């Protein structure tokens, strides 16, 4: 059944009861997911601020993590967009360690090259999350060890 569904998805001419989803829809769905992710991180950042949790170092680090994730989403969203703009001949060679890119051919190539380094944002973002949780965990342990009056 799954095979028939997957098979039919590539043959739009035979679909009467449902609409077909050709290639760009996947990118659009992915881009919308980035927007949704960024928006949720924005809401979380605001919520932490409004509840004054960001006064605590642990939550403050998590807040920073949210901001970095927002930035990462912006970068990746832009990266996907720029990737669609550059032509295949800007990348030269087989896609391995030796592949090169012609940055001088188009400004988009430069953006593409920079935006491809998105891990420089998402790794610090998740690092901040880990540090924040670690700080909260230590805080909880310290509180648990404090003798009750």
């Amino acid at each position, binding site marked *: 059944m799954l095979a028939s569904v997957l098979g039919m998805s590539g043959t739009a001419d035979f679909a009467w009861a449902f609409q077909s989803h050709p290639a760009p829809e996947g990118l659009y769905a992915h881009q919308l997911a*980035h927007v949704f*992710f960024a928006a*949720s991180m924005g809401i979380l950042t605001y919520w932490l601020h409004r509840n004054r949790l960001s006064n605590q170092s642990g939550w403050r680090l998590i807040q920073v993590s949210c901001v970095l994730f927002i930035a990462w989403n912006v970068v990746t969203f832009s990266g996907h967009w720029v990737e669609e703009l550059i032509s295949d001949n800007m990348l030269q060679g*087989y896609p391995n360690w030796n592949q090169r*890119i012609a940055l001088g051919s188009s400004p988009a190539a430069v953006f593409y090259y920079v935006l*491809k380094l998105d891990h420089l944002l*998402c790794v610090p973002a*998740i690092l901040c999350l880990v540090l924040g949780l670690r700080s*909260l965990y230590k805080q909880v342990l310290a509180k648990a060890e404090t003798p009750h009056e």
Partner: protein
Amino acid sequence: MSDTYPMAPVWFVDVCGSAAMVVLSFAAVWYARRLVKAQPANAMWTYVLWFSAALAGFAVSRSVGHIAKRCLLLLNMPDVWVALRPYSGAVNTLAFVVVAAITLFFQRVDKINWGIRQDKHALEDAGREVMRLNRNLESLVIQRTEELSRSEKKYRRVFEGSMDMIFILDGDARFLDINQAGLTSLGYAAKEDLVGVLDFQSFFVHETDCTRLMNDLRMNGFVRDRECRLRSKDGSELFVLLSSTARNDGQSGITGYEGIAKDVTARLLMEKQLQRADKLASLGQISTGIAHEINNPLGVMLGYTQLLLRENPAGTQNHDDLKIIEKHARNCKTVVDDLLKFARGTRTNKTPIDVNQCVQEVLSLVSHQFELDKITLATGLDPHLPTLVADGEKIKQVFMNLLMNARQAIKKSGTISVATTTDPDKKSVRISIRDTGCGIPDELVDKIFDPFFTTKPVGEGTGLGLSVSYGIIQDHNGRIEAHSEVGRGSTFSVVLPVTTGAPARSASLSEPGGHST
């Protein structure tokens, strides 16, 4: 080649970053799990765990995709990557959505959690308050009980110590409680004889008083200073000023009454005596004036009558007529003399006398006649009476008047008791003459000392006997008390003060009541 740049740095960052993402995301999950374990009830940590898990899923899907892509391309397997690529992208997209959805969902959860925490705090506060109240309950009960006891004692002292009767009745006017003054007034020794046994209405002398009182209580809820006559256990009557309120609970009507009754019997008797004394004083003043005005013409009439009698020998018509005039003139003079005695207009010769001897002398005069009339004489004379300074003849006249009145009150046969007593301080002597006659109605008791008041048929009495007696006793600074019950008899008591010092001859012309002319 000079315009191209290597993609190796991008590849390096991509692979290393992906690996770091996987490691760090699992580290985040680990810390989040520790937090949940440390505080399982904290919804925030649950969210953090879900968030971290979703991020781990995102990191794994993305990193696996990126690393696999690089590996497959390095292994010259681009076709495989092309086949896997859609699934990697779809899972990656799904991971974004899950992370975002968890975050948004948590906002709602947090609101609910906040409300629950508030309720929890409120419950904890309430629990602490209940614990505190429980701890303090016993001491509070003790404290309140002591306060109540103090208050009860305070009001009990007021209740029991009152000199006036205080009573509490139920809805049917039965006694629920009464103080000692009330018990004494009503002639009872113990509350048990009264409380729950008798009702207040049974003590009223006049049923109409009771009916009117209860009606007013029902209508107005209270009565103030109502004059009532109550009858005590021994039959004596009390005059009371009664104030009472009705208890009304609003649903079942009157549930009881509380009241205070002030015994004003002594005060009323005193007022009556004063009124009587005042009235007799006025009558005495009038009588004195009349007696003096009549006495002189009567003297002249008697003198001339006696002169004419000498000139008219006995047996003649004129002599007989003059005798009749003389007789009636003498009767008038007797009345006038009695009036003067009542008004204390005659001289008294006070000497030390033995009251018992006076009584016995009078009794010896009447005893024979009483014996014939089937009247029993009973005497109870105190042998230790002090000597009085008084006009013995006039005192005997008083005793004679009282004994004759007692005799006339007993229609056929009966007993007359004469007793003499002295008070514990030896300051007065009481001579009581009690008969078992018909008694005197209440409405006439106040009039018996009035001059010319008599219940005897015309011609049988002048109505001056008690008036004269009253005047004589007043002249001796004493008093006459009369107690009578219709059908059971009367008691007249003469109370004379014991005076010391030399006897004096009195020529008092003052009126009864002590008013001087």
